[in-house]
């Protein structure tokens, strides 16, 4: 019985205009999207290879690494181009790029000029937007008249005049509609993946393939949730026009409004200090440390006979007078090195509460957003694609640690430079080379373990599955009492 009913539903959908539209849209949009995004990725990868080469070359050629300490010239640390971003845009629209790491200032993302305003105003659609917006709209179109449409046409009365259990009718409707909707999508996605695979340079590793599979799995659960909602509303209403009105209004709110407004709503409900306020605090901390350092240096100068404009008339290049100058430079460098480390520590202390508050704000955003199935799908997909909050936080933490290492290294080099000057004059001078490291520290991003991805995506996946089951359950309960006349 169930099989026959499913067959009837599938045939009905296959012959309809909406199925043809769904097939065409899935194929055209997914293929165009992945083709374009894959091409963009190849270009990003090419650029990144050049950037990494140039950055490494610059570090290799750095003859005076001590200058990193005094001048604070930033090192551009390239961010890995992520092939998963062919499918998922993520929380940052750019792929690759670099972060400038300096020994004096905070981390700064590098900037890429706008090549075409059209790309900024209309970014290419990714798989998440397609599934979240277009496929969900199609799910509503497939399901809005599942029950009330049949009632209006009078076929529901006819069907229920046979000895068919109502729950079987509804289940058959659900399965028939869902299969005809999801199959074109999965086929188009498969063709899209093939298109990506044949692109040169786009290669996913085993973990990335598994996560792409999980994203597609989530997409099917998401569509199931939206389709169940459509069937539920169709059971709740008596006229297809009312059903479609209610569903499209819900769709506007759940897909176009809630996910976009959730971060801003959480910002209002759980405000965190602004960047300006943070900058003020950091500036105050830095000023205090700098003033203290300056006072110590001045006191040292006074003790050692370095008055105002001491350099005028100083016998430069004459020893042993130069030893005094070297001693001054060593003291200054040492003080600066300590001041820099202290400044970073102070900034970390200032930033720590805000980072905790930001984490709370992000969590609140997620929970507000989770009212919408689209948000659940988007949050889980971006995390699985390594393009979400988890990636951002890990990268930031690792870059901060790298900045501390780099700063310590640069100031050790500065000290080495000063000691080298003295070493040249004194054979018994301690060998400062042994304090030097093998080379300038290099940055390498360490991705999270597979379990971390699953943990962050599990809640959203669970909510989506729960929504699908809940809406279908409600539809079944309502349909049992539905007046088919």
């Amino acid at each position, binding site marked *: 019985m169930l099989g026959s009913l499913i067959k009837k539903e599938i045939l009905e959908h296959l012959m309809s205009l909406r199925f043809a539209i769904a097939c065409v849209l899935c194929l055209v949009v997914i293929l165009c999207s992945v083709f374009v995004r894959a091409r963009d990725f190849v270009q990003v990868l090419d650029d990144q290879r050049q950037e990494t080469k140039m950055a490494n070359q610059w570090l290799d050629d750095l003859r005076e690494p001590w200058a990193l300490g005094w001048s604070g010239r930033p090192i551009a640390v390239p961010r890995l181009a992520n092939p998963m971003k062919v499918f998922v845009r993520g929380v940052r629209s750019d792929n690759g790029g670099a972060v400038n790491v300096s020994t004096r200032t905070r981390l700064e993302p590098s900037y890429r000029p706008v090549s075409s305003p059209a790309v900024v105003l209309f970014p290419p659609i990714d798989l998440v937007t397609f599934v979240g917006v277009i496929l969900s709209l199609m799910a509503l179109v497939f399901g809005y008249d599942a029950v009330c449409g049949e009632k209006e046409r009078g076929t529901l009365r006819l069907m229920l005049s046979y000895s068919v259990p109502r729950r079987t009718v509804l289940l058959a409707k659900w399965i028939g509609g869902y299969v005809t909707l999801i199959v074109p999508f999965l086929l188009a996605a498969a063709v899209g993946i093939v298109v990506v695979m044949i692109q040169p340079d786009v290669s996913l590793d085993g973990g990335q393939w598994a996560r792409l599979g999980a994203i597609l799995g989530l997409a099917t659960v998401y569509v199931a949730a939206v389709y169940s909602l459509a069937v539920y509303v169709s059971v709740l209403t008596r006229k297809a026009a009312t059903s479609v009105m209610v569903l499209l209004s819900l769709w506007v709110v759940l897909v176009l409004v809630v996910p976009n407004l959730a971060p801003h709503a959480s910002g209002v409900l759980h405000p965190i200090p602004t960047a300006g306020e943070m900058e003020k605090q950091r500036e105050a901390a830095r000023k205090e440390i700098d003033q203290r350092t300056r006072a110590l240096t001045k006191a040292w100068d006074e003790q050692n006979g370095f008055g105002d404009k001491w350099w005028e008339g100083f016998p430069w290049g004459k020893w042993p007078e130069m030893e005094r100058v070297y001693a001054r430079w060593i003291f200054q460098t040492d003080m600066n090195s300590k001041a820099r480390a202290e400044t970073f520590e102070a900034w970390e202390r200032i930033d720590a509460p805000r980072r905790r508050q930001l984490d709370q704000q992000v969590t609140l955003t997620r929970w507000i957003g989770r009212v919408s199935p689209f948000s659940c799908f988007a*949050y889980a997909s971006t995390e699985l694609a390594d393009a979400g909050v988890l990636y951002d936080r890990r990268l930031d933490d690792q870059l901060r640690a790298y900045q501390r290492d780099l700063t310590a290294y640069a100031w050790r080099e500065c000290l080495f430079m000063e000691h080298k000057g003295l070493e040249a004059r004194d054979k018994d001078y301690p060998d400062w080379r042994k304090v030097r490291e093998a080379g300038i520290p290099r940055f390498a991003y360490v991705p999270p373990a597979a379990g971390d991805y699953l943990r962050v995506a599990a809640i959203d996946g669970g909510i989506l599955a729960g929504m699908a089951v809940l809406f279908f359950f409600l539809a079944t309960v309502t349909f049992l009492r539905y007046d088919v006349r």
Partner: protein
Amino acid sequence: MFFALMRKEIIAHVLSLRFGVTFALFLLLVFASIYVTTNEYRRDQDEAFAVDRAADADLRKIFTEEEKVEDRFYAVFYHHGRREAVPPPPMSSLVQGLRPAMPAAVQITPGNSRYVGRSIEGNPLAGLLPIPDLVYVVGIVLSLLAILFAFDSICGEKEAGTLRLIMSNAVPRDSILLAKWAAGFLVLLVPFLIAVFGGVVYTWYVGALPTDADTLARLGTLLGFACLYISTFFTLSLAVSAVTHRSSTSLFLCLLIWVVWILVIPNLAPVVAKIIEPGYSPLKIAQEKEAVYREIHLRIQRLTLTTGKVSYGKGIEEEKEKLERERTRRLEQWDRFQSDSIDRQKRLAGIFGRLSPAACWTYAAVAVAGTGAESYQAFENASKQMSDDMRKTAESIRPPPQRDVRDFTLDELPRLKLTSVPFARAAEPAVNDLLILAILNVAFFMTAFVCFLRYDVR
């Protein structure tokens, strides 16, 4: 007769569920959108102040730490430069445009500008989806609501049997259609205008929008465009409902057109443009320019070796100048090649995108609001100007033939002078979009009219 019909339509709309839903959504969305973008604007302003304050503090620190004037000069002009925040354009409190893609600050040294990306300190989930500004809300949400308002205007009445009843009276068909259009559009427009008015008053109240004549003109034009754009979708739905006989078919067709116009064409247009006019990536151009620099530098270095002359003197200086002129010419060629390629790509993307009214609306809105390509160009020009000013200031402090550096103050360093494009010039590119939207409106209404004249009301 016409007014009686219009009254009947207005009453029918006002009493319907869809009016309640639309009214609530319009009020909620438009106001929420303006509230959010206003807060974004204030946050951007706050960040810009913070960047400027930190940059000034950095410079003051150099002035305190560097004891010698020469060291101070090199630290300020060659190591550090002047960092200036890029403030948000005034109308970005309503229309974001290219603002999210603009740099947060620019660091200028003589002859060189380095753009600093935007802070990564905010809520990262805010970047997952576009900021719901007025362009987004009108372009995507309100266009869909306009479709929902009109998709069954004619075929729905036919299905309900009321169209037959109306036509049995001596009512001209054109009056019915016009009354349907005018009443529906009016009912759609009133909640929108109320919501926008409320939002703009709030924006003015918090000081995120100037109250000068220029802003008022921009705001008025923006609202005019929004009405024309909403009318395009409304008239389209009316035409589709006059072509079809079942409201479900009408809805499918309208939604299909909506998806293609809103989500497919505008997003595919830049891609098609990129395929037709691939161009070089900025990095490749930078590499080519770097290669030119390196080549000329080596040739200058070799001059003394190849000519056997000493590294100074008239002959060698002339050769050097010749090589430097060649370098400038070749670098300019690369710049021209890049800008020509970008211009062609922009033009193509604009042409393809304008197949969709959504792209027309977006381009027109960002142009009128002064947050589009013109504002980006104005920023680039300002940073170039500042870089030149830095060079001139550096030369005035340390004139080239001499080696002495005179003492200087912080106030002597030039600042970024961002000028907004005047309204008349900003609105120029929007004229084409205005024409396209007007033509689409007329075409859809004509289609609806012609089809309705031959419509089988039975």
